[in-house]
């Protein structure tokens, strides 16, 4: 039986950043799939199981935080990380990674807590 590859949905409105994230995650042996809007993300999540989702907080059509809540209604086990240039609001409990971040920080955030 082969190795299990982490399938990650990348939700990022900026095309260059989206490509960058896909490239570096692929380079780390993960299997990323990307889209640019919240609606596209929900459509992908309805049709496919992902192990994790990383989403920008400011994406077209929805906030990243709201996307996480809607995504977890589809898959309660989905590990989600919100990427944002803003500090984490005190009333959210989602995993939050402040931009700018290093690849090490991103990979750390994608690792589920033990």
């Amino acid at each position, binding site marked *: 039986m082969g190795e299990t590859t982490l399938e990650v949905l990348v939700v990022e*409105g*900026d095309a*260059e*950043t989206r490509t*960058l994230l896909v490239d*570096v995650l692929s*380079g*780390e042996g993960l299997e990323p799939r990307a889209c640019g809007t919240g609606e596209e993300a929900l459509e992908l999540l309805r049709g496919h199981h992902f192990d994790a989702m990383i989403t*920008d907080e*400011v*994406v*077209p*059509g929805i906030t990243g935080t709201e996307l996480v809540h809607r995504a977890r209604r589809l898959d309660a086990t989905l590990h989600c990380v919100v990427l*944002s*240039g*803003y500090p984490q609001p005190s009333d959210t409990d989602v995993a939050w990674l402040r*931009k*700018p*971040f*290093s*690849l*090490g*920080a991103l990979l750390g955030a994608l690792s589920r807590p033990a």
Partner: protein
Amino acid sequence: MDSVAWLSPVVAGRFRIETLERDPSSIVAIARDGRIGWANRGWFSFGRENGGTTAAIGVGANYFAGMCGDVRPFFEAAVADCIAGGAPFELDYECSSATVYRTFHLRMLPLSGEALLLVHTLTEVRPQDRPTEPPDEARYRDEFGLITGCSNRRRIRDPVDSSWHWIPAWVETMPQHVTHVICPICRGLYWPEGRFHG
């Protein structure tokens, strides 16, 4: 006795010291752990011009000590990789103040299995663009109504030609609906191509 005294002869063994001293770049030799073992006049001039004391920038001080946030672990990793790999590492980066825009080219040259030479060369310096009035937000909003800003150096992307603009009024108070990215200059700092791949 300075515990990094061994580094100065290592530099002298690889380079002509008088040539390094005449170079207007800021040149500093550090041990693997960041301790400074030798530096040229350009390094001390630049350091003092930016408020550095001898204790902070002289022999024995730690090169990484003045860095904060993700910049420090990035540079620590880059130095470790450069020493371990034995190959030079190069990077363009911006180090601006509120009034002066400056970019530098950094070369890391491994000296031995335990040290390297860092050469910081000023590549551009000019006054910051300082428009007096906040610009028209609509000009910077994309098809989704979002403004794109660099999360590191706070510049704003012009959606028409993808140039990056310094807008002081928005550094103070960001408009609504700003999406943060890492601009091409900062990408080299946070996500250097090739560094994490194989």
